[in-house]
């Protein structure tokens, strides 16, 4: 019996109501357990998705566009004045990045950057009676392999085969199967400029992102320029970084320097990250709801104990225990329930996550996969544990304060 007095009191109180204590502990445990499993599931999926997105596309893309429309000369002349122009039409320019060669070679000098120029444009691919529209991206293969991990996603052939074949094309597996084309098949590519090019399938890739696999094809940059009748034009500079997370800043720097719209992978996938944020918000509110229910359980049991033990509280105060002692006694009960619940919740969470990890299925969608992607992270266990401790402390605090404030004289008079 070498336990401190307050701990001893707290233990007798919660052990005196075993069933209620167990229910409260289970409430906390389920909350923590579900949180851990859900967090593993969501973060695992998000992590996988981000990896796939980052690897399949360049980290930064410089486009032949500007964020702001060009300032009209008259507006520039009367800066700050009210200028109204009627019948204004954008100038019919040849689009493309001007001085692209200079930009590419300048950017290549930056440390940690791999740079590849490209020209993309819409084409119709025709094979037999099948027509499919796709984006044909003109690339320089030996530069491209350093910018995207497309080469790793090749199912058949190599990107570099583009250079060796006369009119080679590399397309997504999904696109090929929709066309019914196989390796070595020749098909027609027709551009909006009216150029028809006969191309031969020299490679197939599968990134796992359905929109890419079903909508993209790669040809040599030179052929793309012929196909789109835009000789020597490139409309995209694709960049890969050593430091993936620096993409935003580097993109901003490039845009400030050259004026062209420069998108980082974060910006390009803003929508997806918005969805992730909503997903996380849903997860946290679900877990929050479970924890609130659990907290009510704790509040309930401690309120009951405070009510039942009001005589004990009165006598303890008359003996000389302070208000802080009484408050601590009941707070401790809440924290004990919270702690035991958290540990039990860790076990439940671990079990659930393992269970999810063993499930296999086949689902297509934005991303094709056959299992849950799970992120095992100690931080989930910490967050879950902190969640439960905070919830139980708050739930216990309210009745504990009431108990501490009780006037022993009133209780003793009432009992006598």
């Amino acid at each position, binding site marked *: *019996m*070498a336990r*401190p*007095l307050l701990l001893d*009191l707290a233990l*007798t109180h919660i052990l*005196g109501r075993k069933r209620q204590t167990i229910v409260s502990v289970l409430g906390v445990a389920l909350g923590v357990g579900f949180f851990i499993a859900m967090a593993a599931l969501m973060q695992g999926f998000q992590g996988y998705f981000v990896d796939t997105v980052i690897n399949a596309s360049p980290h930064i893309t410089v486009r032949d566009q500007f964020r702001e429309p060009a300032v009209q000369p008259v507006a520039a002349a009367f800066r700050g004045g009210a200028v109204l122009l009627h019948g204004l039409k954008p100038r019919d320019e040849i689009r493309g990045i001007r001085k692209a060669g200079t930009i590419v070679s300048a950017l290549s000098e930056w440390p940690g950057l791999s740079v590849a120029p490209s020209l993309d444009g819409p084409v119709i691919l025709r094979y037999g009676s099948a027509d499919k529209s796709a984006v044909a991206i003109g690339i320089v293969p030996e530069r491209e392999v350093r910018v995207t991990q497309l080469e790793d996603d090749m199912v058949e052939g190599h990107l570099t085969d583009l250079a060796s074949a006369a009119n080679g094309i590399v397309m997504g597996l999904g696109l090929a199967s929709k066309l019914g084309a196989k390796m070595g098949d020749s098909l027609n590519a027709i551009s909006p400029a009216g150029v028809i090019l006969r191309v031969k399938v020299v490679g197939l890739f599968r990134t796992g992102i359905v929109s890419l696999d079903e909508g993209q094809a790669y040809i040599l940059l030179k052929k793309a320029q012929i196909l789109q009748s835009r000789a020597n034009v490139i409309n995209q500079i694709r960049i890969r970084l050593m430091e993936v997370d620096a993409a935003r800043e580097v993109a901003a720097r490039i845009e400030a320097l050259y004026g062209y719209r420069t998108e980082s992978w974060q910006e390009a996938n803003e929508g997806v990250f918005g969805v992730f944020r909503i997903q996380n918000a849903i997860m946290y509110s679900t877990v929050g709801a479970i924890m609130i229910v659990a907290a009510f359980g704790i509040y309930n049991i401690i309120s009951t104990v405070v009510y039942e033990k009001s*005589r*004990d509280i*009165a*006598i*303890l*105060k*008359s*003996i*000389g*225990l*302070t*208000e*802080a*002692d009484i408050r601590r006694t009941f707070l401790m009960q809440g924290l004990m329930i919270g702690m035991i619940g958290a540990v039990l919740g860790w076990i439940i969470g671990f079990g659930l996550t393992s269970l999810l990890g063993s499930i296999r299925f086949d689902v297509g969608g934005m991303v094709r996969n056959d299992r849950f992607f799970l992120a095992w992270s100690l931080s989930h266990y910490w967050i879950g544990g902190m969640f439960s401790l905070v919830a139980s402390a708050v739930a216990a605090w309210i009745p504990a304060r009431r108990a501490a404030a009780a006037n*022993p*004289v009133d209780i*003793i*008079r009432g*009992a*006598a």
Partner: protein
Amino acid sequence: MTAAVVEARGIGRVLPGPVPVTLVEGIDLSIGEGEFVAITGPSGSGKSSLLYLLGLLDRPTSGTVILEGRDTAEADAAELAALRLSKLGFVFQFHFLLPEFTVLGNVMIPMRKLGGSPEAELRTRAQALLEDLGLGDQAAKLPSQLSGGQRQRVAIARALANRPRVILADEPTGNLDTKSAQTVFDIFARLARETGTTVITVTHDEGLAAQTSRRVNLVDGRLVTPGVR
């Protein structure tokens, strides 16, 4: 005359409310070491209220209580609790033993709160206290296994746990048969005589009150016997 252990200077207690209720008022009282005092009076005369004020369990709305020469008017709740713990011991009409703790465990609660000695020593002291009150063989039992008189004696042992200067008893024999009541009073008398502990008890039993060394009579919240000699 010995120095006062407990001294009340013009204390009064008014319950606030739409119609304020005066429990006691204008009480001057001085009680010395080893005195065995009975506070008597009709029901509702404020006997218990006075006892709670003297025992620092309640605060007077006017006047002040001086315990061993220390003015308690300015003390905060924690300081009052500390004084109750080390200097005072309460016995109520109802025993108020914690049902989950053994007899020994109950007696040890004030000792453990005060601390300062190893657990084993506290245990020995609590056991000795129980022996002294004729409960040596009941130490391991739960309060529910004892008779009413025995429980009240355990409550006295708990009140004595930290060797207080003053024992304050509120109708300690109210729920007891005559024989048990006499035992309780014998214990109080002996404590006052042998250890110099001051005992202040509220009672409306004339026979028991007659056994004390001094009587303080209250009517309508005022003293009708001189409180200061």
